[in-house]
C-alpha cells in the first residue's frame, strides 16, 4: 500500500445539488406512474370492449305467420310429412336445406321432428337483423327501436345478454342464438386436466433433479441452457412437434386403438390426449424454470439444518425443501396452466376441430377448445358472431380466473402454515 509521503490537507468542495436530484427522482416517478396508468387504461379498454359486445340490444325478425303457410286451407299442424318437407324446402335457403338433410334426411325423421324444423327454421327463423353494443343500447334505445320498426316492421327488439346459462350449456350450433360453448369448454377442461396431470409431476421432478441432485458438469449445464431456450420457443413449433410425434408417430396410442378404443369419427391421433401431451411439452420448460426458482429460494441454512441432524438427501427435500418451495411451485403452476388454457396455434396445428357439436367423451375424442372457438367466431363476417365470441371470451376469462384463484388460495394456505 502506498501513502502520499508529503500529505497536503485537501478540503473537498461539494456543490449543492439536492433540488436537481429531487427533480430527477420525481420525473422518473411520474414516468413509472404513467406506464402503470397506460397499462390500466389498456386493460379497461379490453374489458370495456368485451363487455360492450356481450350485452346489448338485438333485433330479431320473425316474419312468417304460421297461418300463411297453410296449404289449401289446411293448417300446418294437420299437414303430412311430405307437405311439411316441401314447406321447408321452399322457405329456407338451399344451403340450410342441404345442411338439414345432411344432419339426418328429413324423410327419415319422425313427423314431430319435421314439424319442429318447420317451427324453428320457417316460422321462427330468428333472423337477427341487427345488434347494438351496450352503451349505445342504453343511450339510444328509442332511436334504435324506431329505426328497426321502419326497416323490419315485424322485428322485435330486446335487450340480450349473450352470456347466459343456455350459452354455456349448449353445444356449438349454426344458429347464433342457439350456439353455445359447452363442447369447447369441455374440450378445454379435459385438455387442461391432462396437461396438469402430465406436466406437474414431470416439471417438479426435473426441477428437483436439476437443483438438488445434478452436479455442475457440462452435460447438466447444457440441459439447463436448453431448457431456458425452450421456454422461449414459439408455441407453433410445439404444435409441429406434437403433430409429428403424438398425432402421427404415436397414433395407435393417442387414437386409443391399442386400448381397444375404436371410434369411426376419430380414426386418427387428433385427440384430446394428443392436445394434452402437446400442451404439456409446451409448458414444461416454463414450469421447470419456475419450480427451480422456487427451490433455489429455499434458504440453504434449512438444508444444512436437516443434514446436520442426520437426514438423508430425500428426507431433506421432502420435509423441508418442497414444503417451503410450495408457494413458488404453485405460482409456477398457475403461470403454466394459464398459458396452456390460452394456447390456440399448436392445437390448430395438431388438428383441433373447429366445428363439432358433440361433447368430447374422453381422451380419445375429437375436440375443440375455447380459444379456437373464439377465433372461429371472430373470423365470421356476421356481427352477431362477434357478440357470442365476446361472450365466449368472458367464459374463458372466468375459467382462467377461477383456476388462478384456486391456486392462489392453495398457495396462501401453504404460506400461512408457518
Amino acid at each position, binding site marked *: 500500500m502506498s501513502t502520499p509521503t508529503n500529505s497536503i490537507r485537501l478540503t473537498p468542495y461539494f456543490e449543492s445539488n439536492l433540488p436537481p436530484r429531487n427533480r430527477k427522482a420525481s420525473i422518473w416517478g411520474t414516468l413509472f406512474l404513467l406506464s402503470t396508468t397506460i397499462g390500466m387504461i389498456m386493460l379497461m379498454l379490453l374489458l370495456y370492449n368485451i363487455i360492450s359486445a356481450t350485452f346489448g340490444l338485438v333485433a330479431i325478425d320473425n316474419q312468417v305467420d304460421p297461418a300463411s303457410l297453410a296449404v289449401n286451407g289446411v293448417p300446418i299442424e294437420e299437414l303430412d310429412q311430405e307437405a311439411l318437407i316441401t314447406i321447408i324446402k321452399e322457405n329456407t335457403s338451399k344451403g340450410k336445406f342441404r345442411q338439414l338433410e345432411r344432419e339426418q334426411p328429413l324423410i327419415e325423421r319422425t313427423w314431430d321432428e319435421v314439424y319442429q324444423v318447420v317451427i324453428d327454421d320457417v316460422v321462427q327463423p330468428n333472423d337477427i337483423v341487427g345488434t347494438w353494443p351496450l352503451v349505445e343500447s342504453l343511450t339510444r334505445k328509442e332511436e334504435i327501436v324506431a329505426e328497426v320498426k321502419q326497416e323490419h316492421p315485424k322485428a322485435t327488439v330486446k335487450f340480450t345478454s349473450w352470456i347466459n346459462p343456455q350459452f354455456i350449456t349448449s353445444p356449438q350450433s349454426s344458429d347464433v342464438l342457439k350456439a353455445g360453448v359447452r363442447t369447447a369448454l369441455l374440450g378445454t377442461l379435459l385438455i387442461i386436466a391432462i396437461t396438469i396431470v402430465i406436466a406437474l409431476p414431470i416439471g417438479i421432478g426435473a426441477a428437483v433433479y436439476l437443483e438438488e441432485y445434478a452436479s455442475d458438469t457440462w452435460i447438466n449445464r447444457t440441459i439447463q441452457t436448453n431448457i431456458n431456450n425452450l421456454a422461449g420457443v414459439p408455441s407453433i413449433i410445439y404444435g409441429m412437434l406434437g403433430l409429428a410425434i403424438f398425432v402421427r408417430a404415436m397414433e395407435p396410442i393417442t387414437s386409443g386403438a391399442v386400448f381397444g378404443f375404436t371410434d369411426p369419427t376419430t380414426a386418427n391421433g387428433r385427440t384430446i390426449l394428443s392436445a394434452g401431451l402437446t400442451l404439456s411439452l409446451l409448458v414444461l420448460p416454463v414450469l421447470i424454470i419456475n419450480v427451480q426458482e422456487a427451490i433455489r429460494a429455499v434458504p440453504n441454512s434449512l438444508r444444512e439444518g436437516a443434514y*446436520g*441432524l442426520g437426514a438423508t438427501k430425500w428426507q431433506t427435500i421432502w420435509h423441508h425443501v418442497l414444503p417451503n418451495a410450495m408457494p413458488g411451485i404453485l405460482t409456477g403452476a398457475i403461470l403454466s396452466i394459464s398459458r396452456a388454457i390460452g394456447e390456440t396455434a399448436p392445437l390448430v396445428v395438431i388438428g383441433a376441430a373447429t366445428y363439432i357439436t358433440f361433447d368430447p367423451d374422453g381422451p380419445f375424442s375429437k375436440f375443440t377448445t375455447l380459444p379456437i372457438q373464439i377465433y372461429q367466431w371472430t373470423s365470421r363476417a356476421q356481427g352477431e358472431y362477434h357478440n357470442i365470441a365476446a361472450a365466449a371470451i368472458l367464459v374463458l376469462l372466468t375459467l382462467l380466473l377461477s383456476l388462478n384463484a384456486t391456486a392462489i388460495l392453495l398457495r396462501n394456505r401453504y404460506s400461512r402454515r408457518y
Partner: protein
Amino acid sequence: MLESDSNFALQAHNLNIFYGDFRAVKDVNLSIERKKVTAIIGPSGCGKSTVLRSFNRMNELVPTARSEGQVLFMGQDIYDRQVDPVEVRRRIGMVFQKPNPFTKSIYENVAWGAKLNGFKAGIGKPNMDEWVEYCLRKAALWDEVKDKLKQSGLSLSGGQQQRLCIARTLAVSPEVILMDEPASALDPIATLKIEELMRELAEEYTIIVVTHNMQQAARVSDFTAFFSMNGDRAGFLVEYGNTNQIFTIPQNKMTEDYVTGRFG
C-alpha cells in the same frame, strides 16, 4: 498406523481441505478431548469454520470441496469409504451461526430429527413427548415454550431460536456438538444464555465451538486452538492448548499478537 486414544473424541491427522484448486486449510493435526469445550479462534478467512464443518462431513455439501488426511471419531476415520456421512452427522451434531429452525412447530422441530433417525418409544424408554420435553429442558428452553409447543419455531426470538436448534441437535443423541459461531447473531443476554448452556452441556457432550469473540472463548472453553494464515491464504493451526495457557502465556508470537489484540 495411527493410534486412537479414548480420551479424544475427534482427532484430525494431516487434514488438508481444498475448494477446487484452492487449499483452504493445510496440515491440521488436532486432538479434541472428550466432554470438554474446545474453542477454535482466529482471524476471518483462516478456515476455522471449514475445519469445523469437516468434522461431520458437512463440508462435502459444497460441490467443489474435498479433503485429504484423516478425521478419527472414536478411532474410526469418518472419511472412510464404508462410513455413511448421514450416520456421522447424527453422531456429530451441528449448530449454525444463524439460527435456522425448521418451518415447523416447536415440537416438530425437536421431534423431527429423532423421528427420522428411528426413534422408538418402549418400556423403560421415553416416549416422544417426554423426549421432546427432556431436550427442551436440556437446552434451557422448556419453561419459555412449554405452553406453545404447537406454534412455529420461527415465532421465537433469535436467542430462543438458537436454543431450539440446540435442543433439536440434542434430540438425535449426538456425542459431539459442533457450534459455528452460535452466538454471533445474538444480543449479549442471549449470548450469555448460550454460553451457560455450553458449560452445562459439556458435562455430557464434547463441544467444539468456533468463535470470533475471544472473551467468549476464554469464558467457555477448556481448550483453545488458534488458527491463522500466511500469504498463501491457507489456514493452519498455530497453537493448541489449555485455554488459560493460550490466553496468558502463549508460546507463539502470532498467538500472542492475536489474543492481545495486536493482530495484523
